[in-house]
Each structure stands twice: as C-alpha cells, then as structure tokens.
C-alpha cells in the first residue's frame, strides 16, 4: 500500500494539485463576489430559490370595501389619481338579459356608492384584480432590454432603472395589470409587495383584507395558508386559454370573469 503522506511528488501530481487549488480559489472568489453581493447582511437568511409565491382570491368573500386598493397605493407610493393601480376591485353585474356590466370607480377605493337595482340582476359580485405573476409571462417575452423578468421566487418584477419606457409590456399584458408611471416614465405593476414578502410580512392588500378574500402563500410549502385554500376550493385562473399560467388563483369566479 502507498502511504499518501510520504508519496514522492511527481510532475503530474504537482500540476494536478496546483490546478485544483486554483480552481477552488476561483470558486471561492466567485461565491464571495456574486453570492455575497445579493441580499446584504440583514437578509442573509433569505434564499429566493427556496420560495415560489402565489395568491388565492375568494370571490364569495370579497365585500368590495376597496381597502386593498387603498393600502396598495399607500404602501407602494402609487399615484393617487384614478387610472393608476397595481391592484383594484371590479364589480360584476350580470343582468337576467343582456350584457354583463363591469365597473371599478376609482378602483373601489371610495367604495361603490351607486348600488345596482336588484330587480333585473341575476347575479352581482366583486372581483379583486392584480398582476397574475404568470409562470409564462407575455410581458417578459416582449421586453426588448430585459427590464422585466420573473425572479427566482416566482415574482414578475420591473427593473425601474433599466426600463426604457417603450410600453410593449403594457400592451402585451392580457390582464391590464400594468400601467405607465407618470413620474418615473417607466412601466409599473404589482410586485406582491416584494419588499414585504421577502421579510416574512404579507403583501399590504392581504394585510388589510377584512374577510380573508385574499390569501397569500407559497405553492410548495405544506404549512402555507395557500395550500389549504387550494385544497378546499375549485380554482380557476383568468383567461386560461392564453396559456400564460397565472399564479393568482380564483375561487368562485365563474366564466363571466375575465
């Protein structure tokens, strides 16, 4: 048997260990350089690759109070004027005869003061809307510069500094979830409150929802409230035929909801 410690060093072995040493050094440097730069010290324990976020919405529970749309604007400093929303609440009125009417006065923030006449209404309900954080996002595909992207934890984000404001993504979103920010002149949209969820807080809209109409969680985690929601409800997604694979799941939304 050869004793490793006393083995005479030959040329081949020497070169081998040298290259292993250099490779290990390079590896360490690259881990330090790239791995260390993300998520600074305070966020040291957060690993995006371990998460995959999604939201559930129970249409039967939504009371249309609009607190979600209000909180979203305050949390994310969205322009207060109507027409700029990261999330909003729609009212559906399905009459016994004729076309379904959908409205959303100021996103529902001031409530829905004009109530509908109940007589010729078949059904009426509220539907909260937001970015669907698609697994197959058309907005990301059309971005010419790579300013919008799906993060490793499954959230579709916009890089405000890199966006050139061409608005292709706003056109491409089949859900109307994006808007053009009048001040930054870039595309803007829901981030699932990325700055909150990465610190273990729920998105602001979920925090203020009084009836659990919005459920936030992780697809892959057994203990997540979203898992229970998925287990106990028949779920649909919006416009499934587009194959965008949304990660916002609706319970109680019938075919009329688009």
């Amino acid at each position, binding site marked *: 048997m050869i004793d490793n410690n006393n083995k005479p060093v030959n040329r081949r072995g020497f070169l081998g260990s040298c290259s292993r040493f250099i490779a290990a050094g390079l590896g360490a440097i690259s881990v330090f350089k790239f791995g260390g730069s993300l998520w600074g010290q305070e966020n040291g324990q957060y690993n995006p690759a371990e998460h995959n976020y999604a939201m559930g919405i129970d249409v039967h529970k939504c009371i249309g109070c609009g607190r979600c749309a209000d909180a979203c604007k305050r949390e994310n400093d969205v322009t207060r004027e109507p027409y700029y929303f990261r999330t909003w609440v729609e009212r559906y009125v399905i009459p016994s005869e004729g076309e379904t009417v959908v409205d959303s006065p100021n996103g529902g923030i001031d409530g829905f003061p004009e109530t509908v006449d109940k007589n010729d209404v078949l059904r009426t309900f509220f539907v909260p809307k937001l970015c669907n954080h698609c697994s197959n996002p058309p907005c990301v595909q059309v971005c010419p510069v790579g*300013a919008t992207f799906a993060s490793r934890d499954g959230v579709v*984000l916009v890089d405000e500094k890199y966006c050139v404001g061409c608005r292709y993504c706003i056109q491409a979103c089949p859900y109307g979830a994006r808007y053009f920010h009048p001040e930054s002149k870039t595309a803007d949209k829901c981030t699932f409150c990325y700055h909150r969820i990465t610190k273990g807080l729920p998105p602001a809209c979920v925090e203020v929802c009084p009836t659990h109409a919005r459920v936030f969680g992780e697809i892959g985690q057994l203990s997540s409230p979203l898992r229970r929601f998925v287990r106990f409800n028949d779920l649909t997604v919006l416009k499934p035929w587009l194959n965008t694979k949304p990660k916002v799941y609706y319970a109680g939304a019938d075919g009329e909801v688009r």
Partner: protein
Amino acid sequence: MNKLGIPGQIVPLAIIGVVVIAAFIAARMLFVPDTFGEYGHYRASAVEEIASQEIVYAGHEACNDCHDDIFETKQESKHRDVSCEACHGPAADHIEAPDEFTPTAPRGRGYCPLCHGYNPSRPSGFPQILPKTHNPGKACMTCHDPHSPVLPHAPEDCSACHRDIANVKQVSHHATLSCRTCHDVPDEHLIQPKFVRAEKPANRERCGQCHDRDSDSPREIPRINIETHGERNLCWECHYPHYPEVGK
C-alpha cells in the same frame, strides 16, 4: 509576405478585426450592467433594490407590543380579521416614533359604511346597514365599540318582557342609557311584575339632571332651561322618553 510569413493583405484586416472586437467588448462593458445575466436575462441587483423598498404598513402583530389591551379585545371580537391599519391607516412611522406620528382614527360616519353600507353586490351574509336610516346623525362609535363591535342590546332582564320598548329605545337618542337610569326597579319586579311595581319618573328634575343647562352631565347632551322650557308640563307630555325627538 512579411517576416512572419503572413500575407500582407491579411494584416490590415486583422487590425480591423481586433478593433471591431475590442469596440464590441468595450460597448458591452459600458452598456450591460454589472450583474446582468447572473440569474437570467435581467439585472440581478434589481431584485435587491426592489426588496429594499421601505415598509409602510407595519402589520397588525406589531401593534400588540404597546396596545395589547386593544389587540386582545379585538382578537375576541367580530373585528378579529379587520387589521388595525385597515381603519387607522399605515403606521410603520408610528411604531418608529409613537409620539411624533400618531395614526388617525376614523371617527366620522363615513368610514364604516365602506365595509358595512348596504350593497347588493356584497355577499348576503355580511352585516350591512343603510347609513341614511341607521341612527342618522350619531357617530357609529356611540353604539358600537370599533374594537369589539357587539350589537347593543338592552339588558336582557328588562327586554325579556318589555321588548317593544327596548327595541325602540336602542335606536333612539337615549340608546346608551340604561333603563335603570330613569326607573328604580326592585329586583322582585323581575319575578312578580304585577305585584311589585317598577317606578316611573315623577318629576321634571329626573330629566333635568342631564338636560338642565346648569347640570354637570357630559357636554354633548343638548340643554334646556328647566325653569322655563315647556312651562310646567311634564317633559314626557311632549317628548316620548324612550325615543325623544325635538321639533314639530
């Protein structure tokens, strides 16, 4: 042919090639940001920048540290799922500096109906009222504690037999008064009402203790001058005591 044996026409071509490649590399270094492409076709550090955005809503758990009494009351009540900040607005600033930033409280009649105003589009089980007819003119908090909004009821001991009076009174200006403020009731009345009578107010002073201009009752109670108002008639000849109204 030069010294290296490379054909002469190749040299300028090679130089141009090198310059073009160098220009491309330089442009790439200039225009493609540092962390681009680390995890995909995007700037990896953008993720970090987005995650560092400031938090505005502190979350309801955070209030428990200092307002644990209110927190616990609410936890037991029908408003358990209504976040503190759904009514008081974002309060992360308040937690950092409680004395500098105090959240506002929605004391007016306009706010609660955002959730409780009747609207046919709401799920039918949800408690709703018509703000126009539901005790107009009074703040919701006079009858409902916002942190524990139980439905006010006359004490069961009286309403068991005097339901009609209790029902009227509970939506009146006198909703917050207990029956015993005006009626001295011996306990036996509850058992043998026909034999042991409850007392009825007998004089104007009973009402004057709250309504006389010189009384030291809470300021929001409307005042009259007991010496002159309504001459010498009993107050309840003109005002029904269980549903007092003014005017006509």
